């Protein structure tokens, strides 16, 4: 080796590190965005990032592209640690060709995906890209498809997380869409298949990028985003926290935390959570917050399909996926959006050995033409399928209503629920007492007194957890204040649960 080579390495490294140059970096900062490398500094443990393919360049010769080459070609890839745990990352660099995806750029991404799968480590993608490198034509399209293919192969093998931190448009959206979670940043990120210009041309509808596919839209209307954050730093630091709920791959369990929050902690105030009048709502999130370790619940999709709550918490230090009906919204009914929201989450937990706690207060499926015509049959079936298929530990607590088919769906005993508990206020029945009586005793409908009498006797018989408990559908009836203790005990008992589904190529979940 010669001094020349050292100097060359030094120079090239310097070149690579400055990305698109100071002017473009300033522009990036001006929008409130960090650069690709700065983002990695925030995301990874200090000094842990190891870059790969720093010297990759595109090979395009059309449209004078051979004169425009920047080392790294618009994406920074590599590996490092988050809280000491190995992860692979790619971070698109908007300052280089607008972060556009060339064949070489795509190869860098597929390379880290492959390596991550080989060593069993999660992949985090930081997306900030104008789209395909148009100058490369079909080579760029091929690049996308190569990434999609790798994403699909990695799905269920290692966790994949996408953080959208700038534009992500056209075919590019489908890589994040296949990954397990999408996080976005308010105001500076957007995702859409066809952009505002196309919309304008085709439908004559004027719409801004933000209105079409901003973080607000995807976190509240479309359900595409799992979480949205104020800025780059919040998003990246929350990713660090989030990753600690997940195992590195499908062969491991999630990491455990040591906590001083006692498993036996009683929560007296839960005795008053469920109102005496069963038509009054209450906030299921309060139950979650009061029973998880240290009052810490990482909610996902908090603004979408709010009649269902999903997210991660810990019990006795162990990561648990929580699925809960929210009586505050649509009385906690299952509908299309909430079923799909929960189904995908349940399947994620099942892929990655994360136990599932299901909190039930569900009066049934949401009735109506919109739901039926929208396919609640096949959409609701997804949740049923997901719970039935899951082999991880499943603990269910029924706080109040568990009516009809929705009772079956919500991780019931019949769907291999491991521990199914109920509060004394639980009503496990085909339907509410009044409705049931009006069907069984149709001839008495005119007679108010008789109906009241019959309703009372139906309530006595079914508006409680006892007939379900008598059949063993409920393992125990617990006091609300003891919920945390019971959940912790159940999960501890289930820690070594093994259950195998029959071999098959893959099941055929109704999509």
């Amino acid at each position, binding site marked *: 080796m010669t001094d020349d080579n050292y100097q060359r390495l030094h120079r090239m490294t310097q070149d690579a590190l400055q990305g698109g140059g100071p002017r473009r970096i300033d522009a990036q900062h001006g929008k*409130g965005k960090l650069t690709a490398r700065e983002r990695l*500094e*925030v995301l990874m443990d*200090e000094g842990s990032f190891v870059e790969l393919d720093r010297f990759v360049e595109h090979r395009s010769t059309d449209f004078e592209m051979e004169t425009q080459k920047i080392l790294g070609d618009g994406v920074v890839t590599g590996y490092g640690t988050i809280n000491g745990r190995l992860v692979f990352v790619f971070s698109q660099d908007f300052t280089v060709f607008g972060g556009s995806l060339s064949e070489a750029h795509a190869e860098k991404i597929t390379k880290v995906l492959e390596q991550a799968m080989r060593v069993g480590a999660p992949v985090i993608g930081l997306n900030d890209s104008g789209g395909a490198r148009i100058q490369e034509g079909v080579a760029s399209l091929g690049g996308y498809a190569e990434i999609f293919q790798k994403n699909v192969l990695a799905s269920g093998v290692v966790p994949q997380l996408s953080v959208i931190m700038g534009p992500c448009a056209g075919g590019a959206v489908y890589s994040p869409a296949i990954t397990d979670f999408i996080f976005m940043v*308010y105001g500076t990120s957007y995702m859409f298949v066809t952009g505002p210009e196309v919309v304008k041309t085709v439908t004559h509808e004027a719409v801004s990028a933000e209105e079409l596919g901003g973080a607000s839209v995807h976190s509240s209307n479309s359900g595409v985003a799992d979480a949205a954050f104020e800025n*780059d730093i*919040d998003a990246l630091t929350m990713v660090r926290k989030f990753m600690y709920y997940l195992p590195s791959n499908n062969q491991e369990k999630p990491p455990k935390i040591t906590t*001083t929050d006692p498993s036996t902690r009683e929560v007296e*105030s839960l005795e008053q959570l469920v109102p005496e009048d069963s038509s009054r709502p209450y906030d299921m999130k309060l139950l979650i917050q009061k029973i998880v370790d240290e009052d810490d619940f990482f909610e996902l999709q908090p603004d979408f399909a709010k009649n269902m709550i999903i997210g991660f918490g810990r019990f006795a230090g162990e990561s648990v996926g929580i699925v809960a009906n929210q009586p505050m919204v649509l009385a906690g009914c299952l509908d299309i959006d909430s079923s799909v929201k929960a189904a995908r989450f349940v399947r994620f937990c099942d892929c990655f050995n994360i136990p599932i706690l299901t909190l039930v207060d569900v009066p049934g499926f949401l009735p109506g033409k919109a739901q039926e015509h929208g396919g609640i049959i096949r959409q609701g079936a997804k949740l049923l399928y997901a719970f039935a298929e899951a082999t991880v530990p499943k603990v269910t607590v029924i706080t109040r209503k568990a009516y009809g088919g929705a009772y079956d769906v919500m991780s019931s005993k019949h769907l291999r629920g491991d521990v199914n508990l109920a509060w004394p206020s639980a009503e496990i029945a085909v339907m509410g007492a009044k409705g049931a009586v009006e069907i069984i005793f149709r001839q008495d409908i005119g007679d108010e007194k008789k109906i009241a009498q019959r309703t009372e006797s139906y309530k006595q018989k079914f508006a409680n957890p006892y007939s379900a408990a008598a059949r063993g559908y409920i393992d125990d009836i617990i006091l609300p204040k003891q919920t945390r203790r019971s959940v912790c005990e159940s999960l501890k008992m289930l820690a070594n649960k093994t259950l195998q589904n029959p071999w098959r190529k893959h099941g055929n979940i109704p999509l």
Partner: protein
Amino acid sequence: MFRKILIANRGEIACRVIKTARRLGIATVSVYSDADTQSLHRQSADESIRIGPAPASKSYLDPCAVIAACEATGADAVHPGYGFLSENVAFAQSLSERGITFIGPNTHAIAIMGDKIESKKAAEIAGVNVVPGFVDVVRDANDAVRVANEIGYPVMLKASAGGGGKGMRVVSDDEECKEGFIQASHEALGGFGDDRLFVEKFIEHPRHIEIQILADQYGNVVSLGERECSIQRRHQKIIEEAPSPFIDEQIRERMSSQAIRLAKSVNYVSAGTVEFIVDRRRNFYFLEMNTRLQVEHPVTEFITRIDLVEEMIRISAGEALSFKQSDIGINGHSIECRLYAEDPSRDFLPSTGRVNSYLVPEENDAVRIDSGIKEGSDISIYYDPMIAKAISFGASRDDAIDSMLSVLDRCYIDGVLHNVRFLSALLSHQRFRDGDLTTTLIAEEYPDGFTNGPIDNVDIDLLVAVAAYAHVKTEGRINGLAPQRTIKKVAVLSDRQISLKLMADPEGYLVSIGDKDLLIESQWCIGDILFFAVVGGRSVCIQMQRITNGYRLTHSGCQIDVHLYAPRVAELSQYMVEKESPDLSAFLLSPMPGLLVSINVEVGQKVKATEELVVVEAMKMENTLRADRDVVVDEILVEAGDSVTVNQPLLLFRRE
């Protein structure tokens, strides 16, 4: 002595009466409405009985329901607490007709003192100082002007049946007087069904000081000294103390002897309070007499060590007072703060909802918490939104204030808005420390309401160090890397960045800020809301709620957000810009939870600024929401009769 006492009240006062009754070995009965089925006062008593639906008029204010409850449970006495039926002559009368003892004064005294004009006459006759004025009803507006000129402006027009600021007007010239007369009599008629008004001298910068008396059935009357209750908002006391920092032994003596004379003149029996208004030159004038236990009675109990409820019970049972005036010693100083569910930033509008978290300090010889709720309780729209009373005691006034500040630091309430930080800020205010109190202090010092205590009230370095301690402890737990000896962090606040170094120390963490070292020793566990620590030898309690990358810290009435970053991340945080929040000005938002009574506009209607839009009722109060600019109603998002939550959009506007 009584066998069984029924407490015709709810909330903290019912719980407080039950405590004394139980100590005396008397069985207790609590009454409850449908809104209180899971309430603390119901659960505290030996037995409980339902008296009706949620609205007070159909339960706690319904004499028949309460009497029926007495008969059903066999109670031989009733303690009415304060408010509700405590000053209801007919109720007391009906009880005595049934041979049930009303623990309170005779109906004669209640009746006279319940009427502003009658009580003032009685006071004059008894030789009690009264506010210069016309001790009779004024006939009309011209009569009012004549009387006002005799007394000299400014004067106050007051409804004879009034209370709570309704039917009251301060006027300073003839014109205002005429107008005020019409408004006040109208309000009085609407509010009390009685439009009689009288006129008296308006005392500027007044203080409110009252004398607690006890009288038995044998003509013995004693004074338990005064309480100062000048700190008020919406004409309601929120901080009281005893003794008053304003009056001396001589004035105390004169006020007491007048109060005793007044009590004797109406053959008063039981506990009672004679309220005075005191001007800058320590002239005092009779305001009214409350013929019941007062909310703020605990401060008197602390400095006299006499249990007023016990004395009320003994007196009603026919016992003579066991002590003479000369036996009553006044020792130390006591302060009471009323913790209300309300919004100090929005004119103290009541806040309702479920109290999701409720942490208050343990009681001891110098700290008392009279609480009517527990974690999980509802603050309903039907009743007074008081959550609890915190009472402190100290050898000196300063000790009592310091002790109360520490109590408030340890009160954590979540789920409803509350005034705890406001109370801390008030106690920390120089005027309060100096004892420079008037009933107008809050209006003068907080004209735009209260949002946060002055940042100078707290030691920012201390708060930042505590936040860093918690952050590093939490991070260290999940950080798989080898622990570092020295950890560098930068605390990012809204207006500054502070660099810190943390070093693990056998005692805790040594936090260096600049050339200042703070040793933090604490047993704090991750997730605890209250951070108790000894920092540089000083004990502190700081409330900390987790926020993204840091903590929201509350201490001494101040709340600040502290974000903690690694130095490089802090450097990068300079590029983060404030994002515009979605434009909600196009909406009319409900400022409070309540019932939407009426919508006074239609879709497409053009509305001028200040015109009425909708009426929301909360806590029995109708609040009219008006347009703050010219708009067109684009969409109506609610219906009359809907329950609305705070900040719920009610109307959507569009620009013309």
